[in-house]
């Protein structure tokens, strides 16, 4: 038998926007197993968070990941609120939902676009990212920043969206939907795209359970798991259904993202339709004390925060379990037995976010 070869994939690789290394053990062109090598983006943020006070941390936490920054700060703020026994006013809850869903949309368009780039359809990548710019515009118009919104804080949100801007978001969504209606059939029905995605990187339901997949990766394998159904922020009043596919291949994961894009649009519309008037944050004087575990649904899956306070400004411990961390064992299962040429597509299909994972 021929000896196995080991090929390093990364840390600098055309399909990877971020550095992670996968050592691929190959038998001819077939991957036998993959060994992840991490640490290229490790910064030590959890330790730094213990040295800053809990309000400064809100902005530090956003820099865990630039793609889902708002949802990171949202989860953190919810954790602090539950330690201090605060309930943000209803308007703040709705604003949080609106920004979360805008973030989810831009993240999913980004992920699907990068996937298109990974299988060599550069035109589609460009088109999807052009559509994404409309959402970035909406975020910039409402907060003043494109990526790091910095609007969520313990007790509520820091900025209100006035009615005109709410209308602007709605008109943006009309444009986005129109463009997506043109692009998505290409992504989902094109013959060559299907050749690259269908039946590639299959993760069955049992393995997904055993390896602890989260988010679209789990939902594409038939696990109906979406934390938004638990109704944090204002999701309880908006009615969210998990989008489930059963095939578990790259195509199913893409389809889950596309369906969630449309779902997010509907959630934003519904939230704008029934947003109540009122204050946007509650004042507080207490300091966080006690322990709390807080979870929320990010574009990539479930994020878990463990916070421990001791009644002072500084937190005693902050721990984050991010979705990509949970999705690395499933992706190793997908890679075993695949072709070398499919590795890029499979890795991108879980929408990896390495800087989240390593912090």
């Amino acid at each position: 038998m021929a000896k196995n070869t080991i090929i390093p994939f990364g840390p600098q690789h055309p399909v990877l926007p971020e550095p992670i290394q996968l050592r691929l053990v190959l038998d001819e062109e077939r991957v036998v197993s993959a060994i992840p090598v991490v640490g290229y983006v490790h910064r030590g943020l959890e330790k730094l968070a213990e040295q800053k006070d809990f309000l400064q941390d809100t902005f530090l936490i956003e820099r865990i990941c630039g793609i889902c920054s708002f949802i990171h700060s949202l989860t953190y703020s919810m954790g602090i609120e539950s330690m201090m026994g605060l309930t943000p006013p209803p308007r703040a809850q709705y604003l949080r939902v609106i920004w979360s869903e805008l973030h989810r949309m831009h993240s999913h368009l980004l992920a699907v676009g990068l996937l298109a780039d990974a299988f060599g359809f550069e035109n589609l990548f460009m088109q999807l990212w052009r559509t994404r710019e409309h959402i970035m515009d909406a975020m910039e118009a409402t907060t003043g920043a494109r990526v790091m919104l910095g609007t969520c804080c313990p007790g509520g949100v820091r900025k209100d969206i006035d009615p005109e801007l709410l209308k602007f978001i709605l008109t943006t969504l009309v444009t986005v939907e129109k463009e997506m209606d043109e692009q998505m059939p290409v992504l989902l029905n094109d013959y060559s795209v299907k050749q690259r995605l269908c039946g590639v990187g299959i993760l069955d339901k049992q393995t997904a359970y055993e390896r602890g997949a989260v988010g679209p990766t789990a939902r594409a394998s038939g696990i109906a798991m979406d934390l938004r159904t638990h109704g944090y922020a204002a999701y309880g009043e908006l009615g969210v259904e998990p989008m489930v596919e059963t095939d578990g291949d790259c195509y199913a994961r893409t389809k889950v993202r596309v369906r969630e894009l449309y779902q997010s649009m509907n959630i934003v519309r519904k939230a704008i339709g029934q947003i109540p008037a009122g204050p946007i944050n509650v004042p507080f004087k207490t300091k966080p004390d006690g322990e709390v575990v807080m979870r929320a649904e990010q574009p990539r899956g479930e994020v878990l925060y463990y916070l421990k306070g001791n009644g002072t400004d500084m937190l005693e411990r902050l721990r984050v379990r991010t979705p990509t961390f949970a999705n690395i064992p499933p992706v190793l299962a997908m890679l075993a037995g695949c072709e070398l040429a499919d590795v890029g597509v499979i890795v991108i299909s879980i929408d990896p976010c390495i800087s989240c994972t390593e912090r």
Partner: protein
Amino acid sequence: MFNAVSKSPWVVHFNCNSCNGCDIEFLACLTPHYDVERFGILHIGNPKHADVLVVTGSVNNRNARVLQNVYNQIPDPKVVVAMGVCTSSGGVFAGCYNILGGVDIVIPVDVFVPGCPPRPEAMIDGIVKAVGILERKRKGEVFPTAPKPTHTFKPSEEQSAEKTVIKEEKTV
């Protein structure tokens, strides 16, 4: 043939230790809304084909060697554009135990683009400036590396934050 270098510079992007914010903004520059391709700038994956290295994020113990390797693989003349405050000082992560500092401790930087993250317009500005430097380097001019954006922030001064003056300046 050499004219092609500054008329159509190829860019390789390396994410050093960044939070993705700068990376997605840089990728957004490549796409139709901002479109750096109108300056002939093309994004490629192989450092051996590149003229411009765009680097985001700061340096840690593990990726310093990788960054050095990527830089060494780019053929001369080459320019380095550093995106975001992380590349100059560690930015918001300054003081983390695993941050060695800005990328300029490993490789010479030609243009710093400040911001967290910089706006795509600023990034395009930075790349276009770098292309000008590339053209002059090609003619044999020796170019000093960009002065580091000045800042007086030191992790030990953290408690007296009101005294901290952060002054970033765009450099040519």
